[in-house]
Structure formats: C-alpha cells, structure tokens
C-alpha cells in the first residue's frame, strides 16, 4: 500500500470514528466552486458517513452574479461602440435577451480574455473603441481588475472601463448564518484560492460571533478530506476554532500586495447576489478617484432589474437551501448545452457538478484475481 493510500485510509478511519462519536446529523458548507468540483470528482459523497453532509454554498463566481448584472453585461455587449472583454465561462449565462454568445452572433464584439490585462492591451490597440472589462469573481480575481485599472491609469488609456460585480466572501458567509432558510451548519470549509488573498485571520470574527468553525483547506483530495476531518473532530471535541490547513499557500494575513491594491481601487459596498438579495459590504465598489473607470457611469446604464428565470432555483442552490435534484428543470430543460440557470453554466457550478458527476454511491467490487493483476501492473 502506498503512503498516499495509507494517509487517506487513516483520514477516512478518523472521519468514520468522529461521525460515529457525534451520533447525530451534522452539516458543513464549502464556499468555493473548486472545492465543489474537487469533492465530486474524487467521489467524496460516497465516502461520507451517512450522518455527515457537505453542502455547497455560494462559491462559484459566475453563479453568484445577479441576473440584473448579467443582463447589463449582455446589453453592453450588444452595443456597436463597445468591445466587451469577458472570462469565457460568462459567455453562456442566460440573460433577459439571450446570452453573450448570442450577442456576439448578432454582431456584438465580445472577446474572451484570460487576464484583465488583455483588456487593457486591447484598449490600447483600439483607441477609437470603448473597451469594457466584465469584472466578476471573488477576492481572487478582484486584484487583477484593480491592477488593470492602475495600468490603464498609468498609461492614460481613456477608452478602458470595467463593469464590476466583484464579491467579498465573508459578508456572504455572515448572511448565510443569519438566514433562517439555510440548514444549520457546524462549520465552513473555507475557500483556498480566496484565502490566499484575504488570509485566514479574517475568519476569526465568524468563529467568535456565530460559534461555527472555519477550516481553510486545499483542493487535492487528501487535503479536502483532511479539512473535513478537522471540522468534524472539532465538533466531537465540542470546540469551535479557526484552523488553517492550507498553510503552504495561505498566510494568516493573506497577500499584502494584493490587499493594498484592492484597497487602493475599491471600497466595500452593498452588492446584489443571485438568490441572496443585496448583502451590505459584500461587494467591491470603485473608490471616488477611480469612478471614471466605471462602465455603468460612463454609459449611463440603468439600475439593474432583478428577475430570476422562470422555474429556476439557482438562488436556493447557491445558498445551500436546495439541491439541484430538487429543481424541476435540472437535467431536462436545463443542461450544460442549454442552461437556464448559471449553476449549470460554469464548470464550478453545483448543478453542473451534479450533472457531470451524479450523486452516486455505486461501488464495483473487483473479482479477486483482478485485484492481483492490478497490483502487478502498478
């Protein structure tokens, strides 16, 4: 048996023992799309003891963007005087009048970029067109948007702006804990990527105020398991705590450079979340010195109108109040090729993960002689 096997077997054993010691149902929540996908991909649901539940929360950046913000982006993308730069997974999110892909087919100039800096470069190359960067995502992508704004200012590029709907995770976690509709959770599996930026210390206020544990975890299956074991053993020992189980990437105070940049360009403000309404301080608003980069202001965009697609329960799925299988559209009218809600669009969305990986506990037991062969081959 390899050392990795021995390590994960030991974690599984501890998980089972802790779950048995608790003896009642216990739920935790992950708030990171990469954790959601990683958990499904490694078959985590099939090894969880029956009384332990890991609920997927608002961790997918595409999914949490409000319908009104999506509609504004698509309207902007359809304008002939604008080049809209967006990350690829926003292309197929449905809006009031089709999606960005449809807007492109109708003649809108929509460019997929992998970095906010590509949008700045494009603005530099095309000085006679307005270039708008669709700035979505949590604290992971927000520093890149801030850096792009700094660069555009440094180069005195007047035709670059951003339509920002960046989100901050901690106010959302607080909102979840005060919302009566969400199942009671004993702890958060805190997002690895976001925590690289914001650090682990910031979760202490949630531990202190709400009495739920916060464990920062990595994305490899053993790291995920390890974080889960930590969360459940805290419950067994009747403790709540903040634990950083991803110290190789996450420092207590985060990435100072990125945080300073964020603070220079943005300030916290109210933001609209899909399915969770407006949450105070959960967004990043351009500071007054940088409002000339605000596309909403530059193009005098109307206030977004929030309207969920008929029958879609993405809002509930995002906040952990419902499972994808409870949606009557799931897998029928709503599939990855014709998604109705955003959770089916992004590869990190909960519905997409359910669609791809299923919720399966199927085991296949090999005949004994095959086990031997497998051992020989490895």
């Amino acid at each position: 048996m390899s050392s990795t096997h021995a390590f994960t077997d030991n974690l599984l054993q501890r998980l089972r023992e802790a779950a048995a010691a608790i003896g009642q149902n216990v739920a935790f929540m992950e708030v990171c799309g990469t954790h959601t996908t990683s958990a499904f991909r490694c078959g985590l649901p099939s090894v969880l003891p029956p009384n332990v539940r890991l609920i997927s929360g608002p961790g997918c950046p595409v999914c949490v963007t409000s319908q009104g913000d999506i509609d504004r982006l698509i309207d902007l993308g359809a304008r002939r005087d604008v080049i809209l730069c967006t990350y690829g997974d926003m292309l197929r999110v449905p809006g009031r009048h089709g999606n960005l892909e449809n807007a492109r087919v109708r003649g809108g100039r929509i460019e997929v970029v992998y970095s906010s800096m590509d949008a700045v470069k494009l603005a530099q190359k095309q000085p006679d067109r307005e270039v708008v960067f669709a700035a979505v995502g949590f604290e992971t992508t927000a520093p890149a948007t801030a850096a792009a704004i700094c660069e555009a200012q440094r180069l005195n590029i007047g035709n670059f702006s951003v339509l920002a709907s960046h989100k901050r995770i901690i106010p959302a976690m607080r909102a979840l804990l005060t919302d009566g509709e969400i199942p009671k959770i004993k702890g958060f599996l805190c997002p690895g990527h976001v925590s690289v930026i914001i650090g682990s210390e910031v979760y202490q206020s949630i531990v202190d105020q709400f009495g739920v544990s916060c464990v920062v975890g990595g994305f490899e299956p053993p790291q995920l398991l390890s974080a889960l074991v930590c969360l459940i053993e805290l419950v067994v020992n009747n403790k709540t705590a903040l634990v950083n189980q991803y110290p190789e990437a996450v420092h207590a105070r985060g990435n100072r450079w990125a945080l300073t940049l964020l603070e220079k360009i943005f300030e916290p403000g109210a933001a609209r979340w899909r399915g969770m309404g407006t949450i105070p301080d959960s967004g990043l608003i351009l500071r007054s010195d940088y409002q000339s980069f605000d596309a909403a202001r530059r193009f005098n965009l109307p206030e977004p109108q929030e309207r969920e697609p008929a029958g879609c329960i993405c809002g509930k799925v995002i906040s952990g109040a419902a499972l994808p299988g409870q949606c009557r559209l799931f897998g029928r009218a709503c599939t990855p090729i014709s998604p109705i809600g955003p959770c089916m669009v992004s590869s990190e969305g909960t519905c997409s993960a359910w669609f791809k990986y299923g919720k399966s506990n199927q085991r296949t037991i090999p005949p004994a002689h095959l086990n031997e062969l497998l051992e020989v081959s490895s």
Partner: protein
Amino acid sequence: MNRPSVNHATAQLHATPAPFTHIALAHGGGGQLTDALLRDIVMPRLGNPALSQLLDSGIIPGGKLALTIDSYVVQPLFFPGGDIGRLAVSGTVNDLAVCGAHPRALALSMILAEGLDRKVLERVLDSVAATAGEAGVRIITGDTKVVGSGQADGIYLTSAGVGELMGHPLPHPDHIEPGDVLMINGPIGEHGLAVMLAREMPEVESALRSDVSPLNGLIEHLRCAVPEVVFMRDPTRGGLAGVAADLAARTGLRINLEETHIPIRPEAKHAADMLGLDPLDIANEGKVFVAVRPAQAQAALHAMRQHPQGRESQIIGYVTSEKDGVCTLHTSIGGWRVLQKPYGEQLPRIC
C-alpha cells in the same frame, strides 16, 4: 452482489439530450451531443449494417478491408509535440489499427485559405510525409481546394485510409466479457491540454507536449504477442471517460476504472487543474485503450511495455458481470463515482 438501485446518476446517463434546432460547437465535442447528432440526423438517413456498428473504421463487405476518414481543423496548426499534418496521418492510421487493420494507403484532401503562407503549407506537408513514413504508409491520392480568405482558418485537412484486416478474431466491442482487463499505453490528456494551452494561453510555458503519433507499430506488436485482443479504441475526443463509458453502455456491462492506476503526468494534471478540466475527458492522439481476457493480461502488458510507445502501459480497470451499462471510477481516496461520457465541450473556468 446486490444490483444497485437506479439512482439519479444512472437515470441521467440514459437520458436523451433535448432536441436541438441548430448545430452548436458542442455537437462536435465527441460527447453525448455528438451521439445525439448521429442518432437523430445521420443514422436515420445513412444507416446501414457497416455504419451502424459505429466503429473507428467501417468494414467493407467481404470482411477483408477497413475504411476510415477523419477531418482535422485544429488551431493552432503547430503546437508542442505536433501539428495538423502529423495529426491527420496519425488519427487515420490509428482508427484503422484499433479495428485490427494494417494501414495500406491514405488519401489526403486539403482545404486551404486564400493568403496562406507557402512556407506553412510546406511545413505541414513535410510533417505529413514524415509521419506517413513512420507509420509505413503512403498517400496515394488527394485533392486540393482553395477558399476565399475568411471562409476557412488556414488549413483544413481530411484524410481517409484503407487497411487490410489482419488476424482472427478481430477486436470488437461485442466480444467484451465480464472479467476482461482494461489497459492503456501511457499517460493521458496530453494532446488536448497541449493544444488548449497553445491556443488559449500562448504566454504560459509548459513542459506539456501532445502525444500525437501513429500507433500501428505498437498495436501490431501487441497483436503478435496476444492475437486474441478483445477490443481496442483510441481515446481521442471525449477522452478515456468517453471510451470507457461508451463501452459500458454498448456492452450493457459494468466497467470500473481505478483512478490511481491511470497514468497521468504532473504537468498534465496541473494544466487540467488550472483550466478547471477533468483529464479523463481530454483528447489523446497517441493512446490506445485495450481490453484482453484476464488470462492474457500479463502477456499483453509485457508486450506493450516492450514497445517504445507502450513503456508506461498500465492495467487501469476491468469489466464485471453486473448488467447495468454503467462505468464507475474508484477514486484516489477510495470513493466511487459514475464516469460519464462528456456532454459537449467544456469551457475553461474563471479562477
């Protein structure tokens, strides 16, 4: 063993994608949507006993020759480890070889865009010639068309191949039996990831190289050692997941793959993680998925490992007697999940 209950995942596996009115890019992804296109549009019109087999090559009535054809529209034309010319020869040679055919001749059709640099065409055709030499096959006929600038993207190639069916019995999915052992000749995901990185993130430096190569040498070596190879398939579009899930669905038997036995290089794993993709879904162009009877598994593995293209061969799974047509994956943490054929194309994620 108890029959598993049909849960959400299996029900979904057999669900039919919604009817479509227009062709989407995803219909060409080699996944469930490609199947839907074939089933709903192609087969009702063109179906016949040879085509309906849906094998990598069609068997010409008489049973002595196999015929195959494939088009290549890859961008960029040159990528780490290969180019469109190498791909056009390897893909067609491999489609013949996995059906048990010895490639005898190829035909090559070129669609060139007006304005294409002559040097680019020369480089692509040099690569076609070199790869054909490697595979021991000649291009004996061809066609050239030029279309207006903007109507095509540089070069599109189509290659057809004829092969002589060799040995008995021929590999075929219908010969799969419970207990059969599944193997692959090396690490997965490298072609699709190398091309995706070259196309989408040219500024990223990676050690990843496409595995594109003709496999007829390896396959003939294997079939000399183990003439009764049960089934072979090259896991191109749709990846290893696509081939394994397809085989389970087609045979109606349960198939299981062992994740920790599936070879993958760290650079491929990292690239897939960065793009938010599952390496099991990603195209290979120099890999063959092989099924043999358990008594011959060791001999087959030994033979494959003797060949330069099979040094990293592994036994990766097996077929069981459960009759539910489901493919499972036993994961690295000892968990289980259903392995499905990819749905359509996957978009790289944000962060």
